């Protein structure tokens, strides 16, 4: 035990006492959440150049409304009220007379103007948009632009043209404007949590309104955090074991350590590295959430499960990696074995979306009961709003526990032989032989 502890200490210090560890601690979340953060930071970076759009209104009723709405929008949204700085592009619409004789020639001419950069887009409004019937081509509204599908102006037009036309239709039916407002009122379907019983007072607690953050952010953050921590603590074991073997350090260590002490020292050293990272992230995250008043979002009921499954995941994956590392003789061997060794971590990455959206489906349930994937998938299911039956994490835990014991045993036996076996690339058949025949 003393020897194992001393070796764990070396492994732990060798990992955390480096600048690389500190940099990784900071960079990992940045890299993992990089795209999200970049999107958030770049949200304000919009092109403020005015957008000129030509309207070909064949209905004769819509263009004026658009001009007026654009004017109101430009007055309200283009300049920052406090600083006076331009923060949005102005929408500059101009009416043009549709060419009835040769509409295609007119479309081409307008398209060429867009290509030259003189215009941003042109809008064609069909003659029968107010009373759409029969020939669909007569009541279409077409927005032509270089990137029309993801153009903000198209969305803006959608949101003003349809209510406008509906109001006219209602008015034509003799419905008063006040009544029309009521008819037009859009009511959003709110996402709500489940009603529960307060254990202390016995009263029924109101369901909480669940935001997207709670529904997606919390499970996703926990899931990716576990992934990151496995990468931090377990992943380096493959390389470092291979190096210890090829640089003959293993031979010296085996003069003082037994193979199982050697492997335990490596795996538990890696575990401590991961737990250090976990503590930093969980404590830092909780502190940050507290500061911005989102303590409600911290899933306190999931955190003990997170740490339990994290520990088992690192021991399980770490043992596989150390065993594989002991069978390698050069970096190329280690590279080839990285993917199979990390499969228990990579596979959940491929399926996390369906598991997150339907955490109680048979697919999610059965996959999360497969011990190799249990730690990562069970945590995502447990953290998802609505939860899962209480027995499932417990059954998963027992399975993973037993499986981890088995993996550590197999890994230890492979390690014992592999660490001193020189020459030849690692073969699965050899490893199976070492594991079961010694």
């Amino acid at each position, binding site marked *: 035990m003393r020897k194992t502890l001393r070796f764990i200490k*070396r492994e732990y210090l060798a990992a955390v006492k480096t600048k690389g560890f500190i940099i990784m601690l900071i960079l990992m979340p940045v890299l993992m959440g990089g795209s999200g953060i970049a999107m958030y930071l770049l949200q304000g970076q919009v092109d403020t150049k005015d957008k000129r759009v030509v309207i070909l209104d064949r209905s004769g009723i819509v263009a004026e409304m658009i001009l007026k709405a654009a004017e109101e929008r430009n007055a309200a949204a283009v300049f920052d009220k406090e600083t006076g700085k331009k923060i949005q592009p102005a929408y500059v619409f101009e009416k043009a007379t549709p060419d009835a004789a040769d509409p295609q020639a007119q479309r081409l001419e307008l398209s060429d103007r867009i290509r030259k950069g003189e215009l941003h887009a042109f809008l064609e409004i069909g003659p029968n948009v107010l009373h759409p019937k029969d020939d669909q081509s007569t009541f279409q509204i077409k927005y032509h632009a270089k990137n029309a599908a993801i153009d903000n102006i198209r969305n803006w037009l959608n949101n003003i043209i349809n209510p406008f036309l509906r109001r006219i239709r209602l008015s034509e039916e003799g419905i008063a404007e006040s009544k029309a407002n009521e008819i037009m009122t859009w009511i959003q379907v709110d996402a709500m949590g489940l009603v529960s019983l307060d254990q202390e007072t016995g009263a029924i607690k109101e369901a909480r309104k669940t935001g997207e953050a709670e529904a997606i952010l919390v499970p996703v953050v926990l899931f990716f955090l576990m992934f990151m921590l496995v990468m931090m603590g377990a992943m380096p074991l493959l390389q470092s074991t291979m190096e210890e073997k090829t*640089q003959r*350090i293993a031979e010296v260590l085996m003069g*003082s350590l037994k193979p199982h002490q050697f492997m335990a020292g490596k795996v538990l050293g890696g575990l401590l590295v991961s737990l250090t990272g976990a503590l930093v992230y969980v404590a830092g995250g909780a502190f940050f959430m507290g500061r911005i008043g989102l303590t409600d979002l911290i899933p306190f009921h999931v955190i003990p499960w997170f740490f339990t499954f994290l520990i088992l995941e690192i021991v399980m994956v770490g043992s596989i990696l150390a065993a594989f590392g002991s069978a390698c003789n050069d970096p190329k061997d280690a590279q080839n074995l990285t993917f199979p060794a990390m499969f228990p971590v990579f596979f959940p990455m491929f399926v996390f979306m369906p598991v997150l959206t339907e955490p109680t489906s048979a697919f999610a349930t059965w996959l999360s009961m497969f011990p190799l994937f249990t730690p990562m998938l069970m945590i995502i299911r447990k953290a998802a709003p609505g939860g899962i039956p209480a027995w499932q994490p417990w059954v998963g835990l027992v399975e993973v526990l037993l499986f981890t014991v088995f993996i550590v045993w197999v890994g230890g036996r492979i390690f014992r032989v592999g660490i001193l076996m020189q020459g030849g690339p690692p073969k699965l058949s050899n490893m199976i032989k070492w594991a079961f025949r010694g």
Partner: protein
Amino acid sequence: MNVVEIENVTKTFGSVKAVDELSLNVPKGCIYGFIGPNGSGKTTTLRMIMNIFYPDSGTIRTFGEEMKGTSTDRIGYLPEERGMYKKMKVRDLLQFYGELKSGRKVDKDVDYWLERLELSDWGNKKIETLSKGMGQKVQFISTIVAKPELIILDEPFTGLDPVNVEVIKDAVLDLRSNGSTVIFSTHDMNVAEKMCDFIFMIFKGQKVLDGTLDSIQEKYGSDTLRIRTEGGRSTLDNLEGVDKITDFGKLQELRIQPGFDHQKTLKEIMSRTQVYSFELATPTLYDIFLRIAGPEAKEQAHA
């Protein structure tokens, strides 16, 4: 008392028999030299003593006990290829290896040995910055810093300049004086002759020599005529009763056939040239090594 007792040990790797029915006893407090050509089984034998390899058959007892599954804390081992964490600092590495083996703080011992081997200034440098010779000395300290009772050194003098060879030799002799038993393998016959109480030679996995230098030389008898003449090597051709002539430039060694009268040889040489000096001697360990493992032995085997 024997510190190591090897009995009929065989170890095979695939179709190669690395060690074949080997038996050997290493008494306490001696220096035992393992010699033999490359690939003859020296390192395999040392690794089996260390319990890194298990023999296929036979038994190995260290300190009177079979070691399978037991601790090797009483043994310090310097492997043939150096095994050190390149990113660790010298002092940290020595403390780590020492504590791992002894279970106690070894700071003072580390300081003592660093000073003795003139490495004090390098204590806070990383292993990767050391030269080959310095690395070798650090590895040597890591082997002995925990004060093991049995010290196994696989090629300890490789990569060292003559000054450092002397430093390590002195250290080894001191360790023996303080009660440790030392086994080391070497290709340097000169070192083996001068340092070892016992010499063991292994060839093709089998023991071919084992005993004190005197007893080994005695076995071969005084069959070597070491001679200095005016005419040198060119005057010694076609001498009756001479098996082999080894030319050292100013000096030649003549191996006399068993039973042949060396006086007759000497008279014949004196008739050809002026003899400055001569000595009837036992063969050197180097010569014995070559007789067993050199080209001459191969020729005899083919004949």
